[in-house]
Each structure stands twice: as C-alpha cells, then as structure tokens.
C-alpha cells in the first residue's frame, strides 16, 4: 500500500518534455520563415528599410540607412562644396578633414552598409530555395543583388579593401573576416549587377525605387569608370543613353519636383515618403539643409537647421544665370504678406515649395542615378579612352550645358557649347560640369578623388580644412578593429 501511494505521488509529477519550446507569437522566428512567395517578397522589401531609415525610424541611433542623410552629406561636406555648421564634432571633423578612426559617423556608415548587405544576403541565400514562380524569384534576387552592389560600391570607394560578405551571417565567425582586395570587391559588384540586369522582370515590381536593367547598366558605367575600365564604362553608358528611356528633363528644375519622382531622367532613386510614414521615415533633406528660423505664422520651413551650407567657392563658381544656381540654392524667402527675408545661400534644390510649403517631413526621394550623371560619365570615359574628347563626348557634356541655359522660359546666352579642348581641359570641364550639376547628390568627393584633385580643390575652398593625400580613403572604424583583429587599417590612420 505504501509503495503504491509513493508510485501514485510520482505519477502526479508530470514531467513535460516539450514544455520549454519557445514559440514567439508577436515576432516571427526566422526558422519558420522563407517558405512562400509572400515571405520572399517580405524579405526583399525589408532591404529597402535598412537602405533608407531603419526599422526604428527617426528613433534609430544613427538614423539608420546611409541615404537618410550621410550618403549625400558626406560626399559634399568632404569636398570643396559644403561646410558643416553643427556643433557636432563628428561632422565638423569630416568637413575639416580632421577625422580619426573613432569618428562615429564613419562607424555608422559602415554599419549601415553591412546591415543592408546582410538583409540582401538573406534574400540572395534563401529566396532561391523557395518554391515559387521562377521569374519572380529571380527578380527578387536581382533586386537584392543590385542593392548589395550599391553597398559594396560605397564600401570600395570609401574604404578600399573591405570585408566582402556574400552569405547571410549564420555563425558569428562569418563576421570576423579580414579585408578583401578592392579589385575583388569590384568583381563582385560587377557580377551582381550583370546578374541583376539579366534577370530583372519587366512585369513584376517594376521601378519605383526598385532596380531596372537600365539602372544596372547605369551603375555599371559608373563602377567601370572608377575602376579605370573606360571602354566598359562607355559601353554601359551608351546602353543607357541610346535607349532614350530616361531622356533629360528639358528644365533642370523639373528634377526636384515631387510630381516627377521616379520618372523621366531619374533612372533610380531611393524612395522615401514622409506622408505614408506619417513623419516617421522621411529623409533629412529639409531638416539639415534649409535655412533655420524662417518658420513664422504657419509659413516657411519648420524644423529646419541649415547644418550643411555651401562654400562661397561653390556658390561663386556658378554663372549667375546658370539655371542650376537658381535651383540649387535658396537665398531669400517671401511670406504671403509680401515681406521678404534674405540670407546667405543654403541648399534649397530638394525643396518643392509648392507641394511642401512647410518642409520638414518630405516625400522627396534621394536620386541615385540620373541621365545627366551618366552622360558626364560617358563623356569622361570617352575622353580617357581616346586621350581626348570625341564628338560623342562633346555631345554629352554640351547637352547638359544646354539644359542649364534654359531658365524655364527661354535659353540664355551663357555656358556656350564646348569645343576644341585638350584631354586635360576636357577632363577639367567634366569635373566642373559635374560639380554644378550634382551638388549634394553623392558625387563630389568621389569625383575629386578619381581625378586626383581632392587636396588641391578642398584647400582652395576651405582655409580651415587640412586635407591630405591619404584622405582618398576613410579609416576603418576603430570599433570594428577593436572587435575584429583581422581588420587592418588604412595607412596612416
């Protein structure tokens, strides 16, 4: 009887075997995901969030996503185009070329690149295993590979040799890798872009901030130009120009009208929407660039700080009647009562005043590839290839100049067509034209580095800056080197 009762007691103790299984209900466990077409689309969509702002939106530590601000701030602040006015040492030292490997903005740039790469790698690794429509499947992988190429193009231009990670991080050891040579990075970029170009669908998820074959060709032309592969650069640029799918807008001002988003000359833009995100995920164009203290009685830009301002050197370099000066800068503001305030030039080109009179939460996209850029790439490549400008090279640069002459009503008698230039003169002309055309569009630093003019031009424009020859590359963030001993540093940082 006693034994029986003891047995009975033990039978009461219910040892539960699967009691400890974790089954989260309000978050998705990746182990149960990546099974359907919807999963594949969701995984692909995620990449764009890391590309733009990050899941935390405006609460993200570094305002995640390089296009949120750093992509277009870095490349003009680290040049003769723009100066920094914030008290933030992180940005100021970039502007003055006094940054170190501890610079937090550089660290965040690196973080954003690799976070986006990992999200792309997830798609590239996992989507091919999903049972779904093959052409749609290939298209999603193409979108991911295009963005991965964009990221590595940022990495290779800023850091030179850099970790090349082409698989999703599964084991942590996957992340503790050393630097891969720049040429291997370029090979990977080209492989991604060519694969994308050949596999993108023309019926599924077309454009609107997603890769297209034309965007692949356009980006290839820029990549090959950086590599010094001028023939391939010219060939790819020719594909874009000759297709005539993205003809120049007749008026430079049309580029920055919200109605023209994702259309016309714009080949690829990183899409943002202040409206759809209810203010949580706009980019920072208006906040950072528009002049402060204008907002009065519900007029003028709200929440604007004018953190990056043009150098005098940039402003003065324009022909006063150049349409691009008018569009690029804002120097006065008129209230509805007719009163006008004037101020030193600020970058105003991204502000569609009619659509967004109060600025702040903008719908403006960040233009990544547009035809004028590719025309100038084409011109530069042809000049390099032939040791001097060819007729097509002239045609390209002069089309850009012709558009700048148009003030919205008529073509002015300025910026005459170029002709009879030497190799050197034409090269300088392209650099000059790119400066006027692409202010705050993520170009200037790379142009100066590519043409070997960084130290010379920055010194001339910014007396306080101390650019040196080693500044053609950024330092590998110290945090990463502290954590990963396989990472070497760019000398002499």
């Amino acid at each position: 009887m006693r034994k029986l009762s003891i047995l009975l007691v033990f039978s009461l103790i219910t040892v539960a075997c699967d009691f400890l299984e974790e089954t989260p209900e309000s978050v998705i466990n990746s182990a149960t995901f990546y099974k359907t077409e919807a999963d594949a689309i969701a995984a692909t969509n995620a990449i764009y969030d890391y590309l733009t702002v990050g899941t935390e939106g405006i609460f993200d530590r570094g305002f995640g996503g390089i296009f949120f601000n750093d992509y277009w701030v870095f490349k003009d602040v680290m040049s003769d185009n723009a100066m920094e006015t914030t008290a933030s040492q992180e940005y100021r030292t970039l502007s003055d070329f006094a940054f170190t490997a501890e610079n937090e903005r550089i660290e965040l740039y690196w973080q954003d690149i690799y976070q986006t790469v990992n999200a792309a790698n997830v798609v590239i690794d996992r989507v091919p295993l999903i049972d779904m429509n093959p052409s749609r499947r290939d298209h999603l992988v193409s979108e991911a590979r295009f963005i991965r190429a964009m990221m590595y193009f940022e990495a290779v231009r800023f850091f030179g040799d850099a970790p090349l990670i082409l698989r999703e991080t599964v084991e942590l050891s996957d992340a503790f890798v050393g630097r891969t040579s720049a040429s291997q990075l370029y090979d990977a970029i080209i492989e991604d872009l060519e694969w994308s170009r050949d596999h993108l669908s023309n019926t599924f998820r077309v454009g609107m901030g997603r890769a297209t074959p034309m965007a692949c060709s356009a980006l290839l032309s820029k990549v090959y130009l950086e590599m010094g592969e001028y023939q391939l650069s010219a060939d790819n640029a020719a594909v874009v120009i000759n297709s005539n799918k993205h003809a120049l807008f007749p008026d430079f001002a049309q580029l920055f009208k919200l109605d023209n988003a994702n259309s016309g000359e714009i080949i690829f833009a990183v899409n943002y929407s202040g409206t759809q995100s209810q203010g949580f995920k706009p980019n920072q164009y208006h906040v950072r660039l528009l002049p402060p203290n204008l907002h009065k009685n519900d007029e003028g830009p709200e929440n604007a700080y004018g953190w990056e301002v043009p150098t005098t050197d940039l402003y003065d370099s324009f022909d006063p009647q150049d349409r691009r000066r008018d569009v690029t800068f804002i120097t006065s503001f008129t209230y509805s009562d007719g009163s006008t305030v004037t101020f030193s030039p600020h970058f105003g080109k991204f502000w569609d005043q009619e659509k967004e009179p109060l600025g702040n939460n903008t719908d403006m996209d960040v233009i990544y590839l547009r035809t004028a850029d590719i025309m100038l790439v084409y011109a530069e490549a042809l000049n390099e290839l032939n040791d001097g400008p060819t007729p097509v090279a002239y045609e390209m640069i002069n089309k850009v100049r012709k558009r700048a002459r148009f003030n919205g009503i008529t073509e002015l008698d300025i910026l005459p067509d170029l002709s009879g230039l030497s190799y050197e003169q034409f090269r300088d002309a392209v650099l000059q034209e790119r400066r006027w055309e692409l202010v705050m569009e993520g170009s200037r630093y790379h142009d100066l580095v590519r043409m070997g003019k960084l130290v010379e031009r920055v010194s001339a424009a910014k007396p306080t800056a101390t650019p040196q020859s080693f500044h053609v590359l950024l330092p590998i963030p110290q945090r990463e080197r502290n954590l990963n001993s396989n990472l070497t540093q760019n000398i002499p940082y």
Partner: protein
Amino acid sequence: MKFFLSRLFAVALMSLLAHFALAQALVVSGTVTDEKEPLVGASVVQKGTTKGTVTDVDGKFTIEVPPGSTLQFSFIGYVSQEIAINSSSTLSVVLVADEEILSEVVVIGYGSVKKSDLTGSVASVKAEDFVNTAISSIDQGLQGKVAGLVVSMASGQPGAASSVRIRGTTSINGDNEPLYVIDGVFIVPETNVGAVTGPSLNPLANINPSDIESIEVLKDASATAIYGTRGANGVILVTTKRGKKGVPQISINYTRSSQELRRKIPMLNAAQLAELGNEAADNSGAPRRQIYASPTNLGVGTDWQDQIFRVAPMNNLQVSARGGSENTTYAVSTNYFTQEGIIRNSDFTKGNIRINLDQKLGKKFAMGTSFSINRSSLRGVVTDAEGAIPSSVTSWALAFNPGLGVYDSNGDYVFQNNTSQPSVGNPVADINKTEQLSNSTRLLGNFFVTWELLKDLKFKSSIGTDAVFVTQKSFVPNDIKRGEGSNGQAAIANQQALNWLFENTLNYNRTIRKHSINAVIGHSLQAYDNEFLFTATSDFDDNRLGYNAIQVGAKKTLVLNETSGWQIQSFLGRLNYVFNEKYLLTVSARVDGSSKFGVSHRYGTFPSVAVAWRAKEESFMKQSDLISDLKLRLGYGVVGNQGIPPYSSLGLLETTEAYFGENDIAKGSGPKSRQNNDLKWETTSQLDAGIDLGLFADRITITTDVYYKKTTDLLLDAPIPYTSGFPSAYFNVGSLENKGFEFALNTVNIDKAVKWNSSLNFAVNRNKVLNLNSKEGIFADPLLGVNGWSVINEGTPIGTLYGYKTNGIIQTGEDLSAIPRFVNYVPTYGDRKYVDKDNNGTLTEDDKFVLGNANPDFSFGMNHTIDYRNFTLSVFIQGVYGNEVVNFNRFSLESFDGNQNNSTAALERWTPENPGNEYPRANVLPRVNTISDHQVEDGSYVRLKDITLSYDFVRLLSFMKVKPTSLKLFVSAKNIITLTDYTGYDPEVSRFINHPRNFGADYGSYPTTKIFSIGLDILL
C-alpha cells in the same frame, strides 16, 4: 522477572486510580500570564485526561480536579508547565516563551530547518521589525536590517520601485534583483509598460507589510542553489502569517503620517539671478538681456521649490484576525494605504485583502491556501525623465526664472521660462495639468495539499499564481509647454501578465539515534505569459476628455502590441544531515531548464555543498560559561541567472516598412537578431565561510561571513562586428567577481526592569570586472550630453566614474598659453582649469581620471530597542560610506550663464574683485560640458532612519471588564537626521540603479522625505 515487575506496576496503578475516584474534587483557579501580560486562550488540562479549560480574556481560569492530580498549562509558542495539585488554591502561572519555537526555525525554501542546523548564510527579519513603521512596501523595511543587503531608491515618488542588491552586482545585462518568493510563489517583478514618464510601480508594494510573519534572505550559493537559475542574486523568502488555534486574535493598526521635503536646494532669488545674467553677458561681450534690466526691482521673486513641494499626509489602516479550531485555522487581513506625494498632484493609494486558510483532512491529509488581492494606484508627475534636455518638474522648478510668477497678468499660467531656455515649461502648470496614472491589480495566491505518506515522509503539491493587470495612462494637454510640440498627447498601455507555478515535493524528516536527516526532492513547472498593448495619439483640439478618450487626438502616433512568455522546468533536491548534533552537511542541487536559452543549453545543473561544525557541542566546549554557542560554516555552490528577455536565442525577424512611390507601403520582414543555439545562463559560483558565536548565555550573538563570488559566462548584450549585420548580440562572455565580509551582532545590554537590546550589522563588498572579452568598455548612457561618465572596464568595479580633475580657477595674470585646453575652447581668466594628465597641452579623453566608485566601501545598520514598563523606544540608524555620486544637477545649477536659475554657489563665482578658486566666472557662451571631480560628490551618509516611541495603555485599562491584550500608542519619525556632505536632495536616491552601466547618477529625481507619524496599535 520483568513480567513480574510490570504486573506489580499495573496493580499499583489501578489501586491509585481507585483511590482518586473516591477523593473529593479540589477547586483550582488563577491566572496564566507570560512575562508581561495575561495569556488569552491558554489551555489548562488535567494530565492524563481530556478534562480541561482555557483562560479567559484576563488570563483567568477555574477548574475542578481530584487531589494529587497534575495540571498542564500550555500555550502555543510557550514551554508547557505542569503543577501537582494537592489542595484547592489560587495559582499564578507564568509561562516562558519557547525560543526554539518562536525564533529558531528558519525557512530555507522547500522546507525549514532549526536555526542551529543551518549551514548556509541566511538572515531572518521578523514580523516585529515591520510593525509601527510608516512604510508602504517591504523593501523599504529591509534597508539596513540585513548585512550585505542594500536597498537603493530610484525615486522618492510614492509607490516607486526600489532596487535591492544582495552581495553586490553580479550581472551587467541580466537582472540583478533578488528572486522574491512569497509563500512559495515566485514573483515576476515586471510591471512597467512605459506609457507614463517616471518611476515604475513597485511590485512589492502589493504585499501588506503587516501580513508578514518572517522574511528570510538567502545570501550564499549553498542556500540559493535550490533556486538554480534564479539564485545568483540571492533569494528573499516572504512568509505570511497563518492562523493559530484558539480564540480570534484581532489586530487593528492605524498610522497617520506627515511627510515633508528633507532639504531645499538653496537657489538664487530673482535679483541675484539678474545680476548673474548681466555679469555673464558682460563677460562674454554679449548684450544684456532685457529681462534682467533692473535687478533690484525684481526683488526676491518666486520660490519655485515652494510652489511644487508641500507637506503631505499619509494614512495606513490595517486590520487582521487570526484564529481557528482544531482542524481549521485562518488568518485574514485588510489594508488601506494612502499617501500624498510631497510634490503636489502626486499620490499613491493601495488596498489589499488577504486570506490564509489551513484545513486538516483526517490524519494524513491537509490543505491550505494563501490568497491576496491587491490594488495600487499611482498618480504621478513627470520626474526622473532626464535625457539630453531636462524635462522633470523637479529640474524645471530649479531652472525656472524666479523673476517670473506662476500666473501672468491675465491670470493664466506663465507658459515657459523666459531666460534662454524655452524648453523649460512652468512646473506648476505642468504638475496641475499633466496627468499620469498607473493602476495595478495583482492576484497572488497558492493552493496546496499535503499528504503524510509515512510517518516521516510528506508529499506536498502546490499550485500558485501571480497575475498582474496594469493600466497606465498619460495625458499632456495642448496648452502647456510639454504639449506644445505635439499639440497635446496621450498614451494608454495595458499589460496582463500571468505567472503560474506547479510544484510537487517529497519531504523526509527523520532522526535515528545520532543521525538526523531532513531531505526534499521535487519537481517544478513555471510559465509566464505577458501581453501588452500600447497606443498613443497626439494633436488634440480639445483637452477635456484627456486620457479617457484618446481618439480625440487627430494623429495616431503609435500602436504596438506584444505577446511573450517563458517557461521553466526544474528538478530539485536537498539533503540536510546532522550527526550527533555536531557535524552538519547540506547537499543540494537543482536542474533548471529554461526556454530562454539556446537549444544546446536548455538545462543546467546547479549543485551546492555545505558543512558546519557545532563546536559548542564538543565536550571540551560544553563547560564554557563564556561561549554559549559556536558554529563554523563552510559552503560552496553554483547558481545561475537567466534574467534576459525571452526569445534572445532565436533568430527573430522585425517588421519593416519601405515605400515604392507615393502609393505603395511595402511591409517586410528583416533580420533582427541572429540565432544563437549556444546561449545559456550566467553562472555564479560562491564560496562562503561563516562563524556563529554566542556569548554569555547568548546575550551576545555574532554572525559573521566572508564570501567570494565569481560570475562567469556573463550574459552580455555585447557589441559584435557590424559586418555581421547586427550591432550586438547576447553572448556568454566575460566574468566578474564580488567578495566581501559581513558582520552581525545582537546584544542584550540590560535585562532588568529596563531592557535594552541592540543589533548591528556591517557589510563590505568589493566588485571587480575580470573580463569583458573586448577592448571596448561598456559606456554609460549619455546624460545632459555628457558621455562616458561611467564605463564598465576590465579590472575595475562596475560603477567606476570617470572624468577630468579640476585644478582651481585661472587667476588674473596667469599665462593663458600654459593652461591645458579643450579643442575649440580658448580659456581665459576665471575659467576652470583641468589637470592635463599627459602634459601635451590639450585636454582629451586620455586626460580623464577615475573619479570615484558608486559602490560604498561599507554599509551598516544599527538598531536599539529599550523597554521600560509600558514604554518602548526603538532607534534605527543606517548608512553607507565611501560611495561617490555624480550630481548631474550641478551642471544646470552651476551653469553661471543666466540661461536658467542657479544654486547659491553662483554667489561665490569668480570675479576679478573676488577671485575665488572653486567656482568659475559667469559666462553666457557655452562652456565645455564635461564631467569633472567637481560634480562627483561623496555619497556617504549616516541617517537616523527611524525613531519610534510607543506606550502600551493596556494596564491603565484594568478597570475594564473586557479589555484588549495590548493598546499601544506610538509616535515615530523617519529620516529626521541625516549626516552627509552630499549637496543634492538626498544621497539615498540613485537614478539608474537598475542599469549597472548607469549606476551612481542623481538627476531630476523625486526627492525622498522626512516623515512624522502617530499611530495606534490594538491587539484584541
């Protein structure tokens, strides 16, 4: 022969009985008392019979017995007495309290042992220590009572949670709070949902302090190993009072208290601020501000501290009844507590009902329940909210221009500060118009059945639950500064958390000659489910409905809900073995499986072993008159910490959102965390050696322990290379240690008409981080834009404070070029000088020194109780020594720029005419915002925590026919004397005590109070 003797005995017995039966009955009457007062319901029984009676309310009895019989007098908790009766008489029986029963049994988790059989480090706090003190929760009552247990308050707001550390900080990212077990139910203290700004509700406030029978604090690993993965931070076992057989014992206690601010911070008046502002402008070549145009006309102005602080009442009513019959006992109680805060418009109310029942079911079975329902409600103001800019009303009251009134000339609230600090709103408008409410309903209870399988083998099955329902609401109207940016904002959060526990144990308790065994084995299942919903809106056109109709807000700011949970399955066992009452051995182990960990490490084993030697029982010590008790203890155990969020080992996806054009919201799922199958618990192994010593018949008792605690496999949310795609991940890396010494002394100083008992405890703990596996230290969160004020680094304690060393003030005529300077700041006369550690002329991160340690060198508590006739006086003194606090308030209180009000330190500012060497000159330009030894203050204090005088009136009521057992009136004062050099509101408040990386900061807190109380305590 043997047979014959027993026959003879039987015959003799029978003849005796026959003789009694013939004898005449005797009438015996008298009183039964203890050393102080009559015992009500004491039993008086004729030995060997069932004939008997019980004493009445005066302790009186009358009984008839035959001559030569023996009367047995007994009462629970007292040593029984027998008196032979040979004639009718009146007896005065004094029963002596049974110390073995009253105080010598110690609850140790899944059982209890005699105190003399303890092998681990366990401290007990008894019910008496909670009586008559104006506390709202038990953690406040523990401060200073137990060596090695330190209570820190994050805020003085009524109802706010505090933080308890037992033997130091053992975890960097995991939980550091001890495990609370209330009547066997594990409490899950997570009730902050985040809809209100300020301190979270104290989960322990849900326990009525007067319900508590005892609290045991398990400190060393040999004691806590039975709690496995939750034992690393110590365990606090709370046992509530249960019913006793006998007539109902009713207790009524009412306390009325008054609270006030301990000290005001001396601030500039309006004229003084204006002079400062003008001087600051002049020194910087800036134009003087219009508002400071004529200082003398401004006069004293408004004292904003007086505007927000008040003297506030607190009431506590507690009623309980205990009693029962042979088979059923009960303890029921209720408690109603209201506390207004010393900041206007803040208060805390709670109510509590408890029912504890025990029922015997025949000879082998029994069942029982403990159940309580608790409701608390905290109405708060915005405090403890500082980030980059001050937003606590306490900070606002200090910053606000005394030259402004509360109302403008139209009778409306002045909107905002008119110095150069428009972000600061009118604190009076803010406390009156901002509404914040946290309501919590908690059901805590268990039901158990016991079954005596064999004489020594008992089975217990218990099911327990802790269910918490929290609602938080906040509303900021559109017409005050705080609501300006959002045009009014509201948030509501609801949380439902259910924790259930099912435990089955077998206890074996047997003594065979010299061998005594007390063993337990068991199985435990626990699950926790948590759901919350958070909604927020903004842009209100109409403030009237406030948080009761947040849909009035035009913008949907946030909708967020979450469901999460975790489970634990455990197997446990413990053996206490005592040989010859001299040699003691305890072996225990718990195997814990937790769902929070990676699939490769679901289960962990946490063993312990402890031995003790009761040297006093050896023959050579038995004769000693000096030494009445001596026990040496040694224990070692391994325990764990699983205090990380659920799902930390899984690869989770997060919901993403991107936009393709202006009409396509593209939701997605992106990688949020990396799957980590190897994630497991933190492991803390602890070695403890202790001595228990009693001298002079235990008039002096000493318990002292030394320990070494090493925590390995620290659960760090550690940075990982960004190339992984993630900034950080939970890892088991790193280690740290805590080592220390504890000493507790109890003495009976005088034991005559005057009784004077004292107790003293003293503890030293030293913490050190041994290994973080990374060169990157763990930085404190920036406060006021100040980075790196505390960093967790290898080789230093958690709570190490870093900053520059000041070096006086630059005096007129000094060589400015020789003064070390920060980048971008050119110093001049009257500016502060800093020590240039590396002598390179520039002040950089490399020039920072270790400025202090937020951990005290030692902590102590001292209690005296003096009884004389009907008076009892108790004095409780408590303190810490040697800790530093970063007084962040000083950054704003000593800005010397005229941008906000300053403390009177500004009157000692440097001027060419009055060149002091401590405070710099006035200057409107931003100065380098850096931490220095000037803001790091000594946080040591000694505090008269409580002094209580009580008088028992019951003897004055002897004329009454039915009078209470005791009727005490008492007066008490808390925190009335504090000796400290700390210049903030209070040294006891540490804002971010819950986050080890932010340990040791004070900024914008709700201050603690002085409390005066008067109360009545009736026992019927």
